[in-house]
């Protein structure tokens, strides 16, 4: 078949090489740009979160399976990994530390073979509810069986053990980071490759129309089951990496809120695009580690972000990016810069005013005894003073006004560009 008369993804596609090259480069240099030890653990956690969110999206985005219990698999991966690592420490099992995540992956896959059989018998709501039930059961048992789960204290371990090839002990965070980075790169690559395989395509078809899939020769249950196991495998790898990173595993890793976080952030990143969960994973770590450090009101902000994102960008951040890519592809992104700038600045002003007020309220509620004064972005606010409230309200209202002006302008511009693109596409089609 020498002369294919159709265009297809070729493994040697230049664009792809560039993108994957960039991805590798980012993984490589990130720890050199952010050097504090907190930054290094955060980067490590981001890698872990990226893998697990991507694996979650195999279910949600690619398979249309809404799971409320994905943490069961990443968590079981963690637990088995920690037990294995402790056996390694005792000298009973000669497994290099760098392969522990694979152990996590395999054990998660094992549990997926077990639980997944009943879970994937159903799709849609029954599927979601079975995962919820199994998730709750595993979580409840995790506290009841200290023999395996280590009780409240969990199980700790030491990743510095076994042979040390090239003097790599994985003691220093940076060494571990690079191990995680390698895993992140490979797993991302594998999961991307998966989307290009027959099974990867059929699972999309199962998502869209399971009934028809049965009539082209596939057993939908089996398709879901296999994908479920593969997703669990990658989740387990991330669990194993988390074991190495935190060196302790407690029952929270299988908890319902953890599963919920996967869902939330995968969606926020964008479930309809392959790279969406990567953004989601990064945001997850940022939100939990940084945002919560910055402000007591972080849960409120998180809730609001979700509310607005779901309402105005239900495709997640990835869809926003892709929309602009499309505009760029038609060469019209340049015109939007000013509008974007205006939007960003005015939105920032609104945020500033609103955040100042939120912070003052929180201050009044939580820290009133420390005096009415609080620091907000370097400025001093007086939570009991009319001036601060007036000022904040004023800033916010002006912001809202300006934002609205900018927004109207932008949406007109945007609409016009979309119209242009539609026309242009029609025109090209007829060529």
């Amino acid at each position: 078949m020498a002369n294919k008369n159709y265009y297809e993804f070729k493994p040697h596609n230049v664009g792809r090489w560039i993108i994957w090259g960039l991805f590798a480069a980012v993984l490589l240099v990130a720890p050199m740009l952010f050097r504090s030890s907190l930054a290094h653990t955060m980067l490590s956690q981001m890698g872990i979160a990226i893998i697990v969110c991507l694996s979650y999206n195999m279910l949600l985005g690619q398979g249309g399976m809404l799971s409320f219990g994905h943490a069961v698999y990443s968590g079981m991966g963690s637990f088995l990994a920690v037990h294995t690592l402790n056996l390694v420490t005792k000298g009973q099992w000669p497994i290099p530390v760098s392969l522990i995540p694979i152990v996590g992956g395999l054990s998660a896959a094992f549990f997926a073979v077990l639980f997944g059989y009943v879970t994937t018998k159903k799709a849609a709501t029954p599927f979601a509810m079975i995962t919820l039930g199994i998730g709750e059961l595993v979580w409840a048992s995790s506290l009841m069986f200290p023999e395996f789960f280590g009780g409240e204290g969990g199980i700790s371990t030491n990743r510095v053990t076994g042979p040390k090839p090239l003097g790599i002990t994985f003691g220093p965070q940076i060494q571990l980071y690079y191990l995680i980075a390698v895993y992140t790169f490979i797993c991302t690559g594998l999961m991307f490759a998966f989307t290009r395989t027959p099974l990867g395509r059929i699972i999309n078809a199962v998502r869209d129309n399971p009934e028809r899939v049965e009539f082209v020769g596939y057993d939908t249950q089996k398709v879901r089951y296999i994908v479920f196991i593969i997703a669990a495998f990658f989740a387990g790898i991330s669990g194993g990496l988390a074991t190495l990173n935190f060196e302790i595993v407690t029952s929270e890793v299988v908890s319902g809120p953890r599963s919920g976080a996967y869902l939330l952030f995968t969606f926020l990143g964008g479930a309809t695009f392959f790279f969406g969960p990567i953004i989601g994973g990064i945001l997850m770590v940022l939100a939990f580690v940084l945002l919560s450090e910055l402000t007591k009101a972080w849960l409120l902000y998180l809730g609001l972000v979700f509310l607005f994102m779901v309402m105005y960008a239900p495709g997640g951040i990835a869809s926003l990016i892709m929309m602009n890519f499309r505009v760029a592809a038609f060469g019209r992104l340049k015109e939007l810069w000013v509008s974007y700038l205006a939007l960003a600045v005015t939105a920032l002003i609104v945020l500033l005013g609103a955040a100042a007020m939120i912070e003052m309220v929180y201050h009044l509620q939580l820290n009133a005894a420390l005096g009415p004064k609080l620091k907000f972005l370097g400025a001093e606010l007086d939570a009991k003073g009319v001036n601060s409230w007036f000022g904040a309200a004023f800033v916010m209202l002006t912001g809202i006004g300006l934002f609205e002006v900018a927004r109207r302008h932008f949406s007109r511009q945007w609409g016009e560009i979309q119209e242009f693109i539609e026309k242009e596409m029609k025109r090209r089609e007829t060529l």
Partner: protein
Amino acid sequence: QKGETVRIAFMDPLSGPFANVGQNQLKSWQYVADRFSNKNAAGVKFEVVGFDNKGSPQESLNTLKAAIDQGFRYVTQGNGSGAAWAILDAVNKHNERNPGKEVVYLNYAAVDPAMTNAAEKPGTPECSFWHFRLDADTSMKMEALTSFMKDQPKVKAVYLLNQNYSHGQQVAKYFKDAIARKRPDVKIAGEDLHPIGQVKDFAPYVAKIKQSGADSVLTGNWGQDLTLLVKAMNDAGLKIPLYTYYAGVTGTPTALAGGGDSEVYVVAYGHSNHKGELGEMGQEFLKKFNDDYYTFATYNGIQLLSAAMAKAKSTNPVAVAKAMEGLSVKSFAGEVQMRASDHQLQQPMFITKWQKAKPGEYSVEKTGYTFVPIKQLDPYVSSTPTSCQMKRPG
């Protein structure tokens, strides 16, 4: 040393469902630090900064990293043994891998005895040189409580109702041990472990207790699992004494008061009606924060730290940690000593009873109820042996 500022990183849930407790305790630490800054044996200034670990062990590790990055050398935590062990384990590893940058961990409320004993299995908690517990652990409290109960002739058949996780399992186990030693005639009328936080209605348990013929109930439950139990007992008209660990925690008194009169005993290292300095502090705290001051371990913690710093003539964590070993200071309730062998503070214990506050008594959470001490037990009573083999640096 004198005039230096000692910064302590406080890590406990400051948001989410357990925020109430964490925030109260952060305020307690800050209040005590403020009060004794420069007015202490070492003449240092204390500053306590809150980090929100959301009650999660893994998040605790992040906050610990953040704190260490920001130069904190003292951390304190108390809510939840899970987070406690995560922090301790991470502190151990940090200190081992970063000599010269050691961190000391003051545990003010996590009471899993495993943290001051030898490890049962690799990977489970064990004692550490960097860990100092200011509270009394589960086994010590049980010693105190059983010492009180053995003198109660009414107590003949006890029902054990606990949450099915390490703390609840330990409470049951230590009770059975201790009571067999002290009052072999006391029967265990029944025993139940229930999943933590899952029971919405305790009436079935109350029915079971009633059927068992128990004359008292012992529970390590906390939060909703405790208040709902008390309410259910009240509702069913089961008027038998309830021996508890955690009836005094933020929010629980309010909920208890809503349920009407019931006979509840608490074992703790303090109570709500201390006189003298601590009493004053309670009033001042109430005025300032509109909240109760009950984490007295903060008081002992600051006393202990400053005394150790004075003794070591340094604020270096290693030196201070060494100085704290075996150190005795005066607490709000007499002399207390940080036992060198396992870093467990040896202190007096109190049995208190929940009842309507008489004039002059402290109204807990403005409920009109209070915890009155009915028995004080000297430190030796509640002291328990340790299997810890402390590994000291250097």
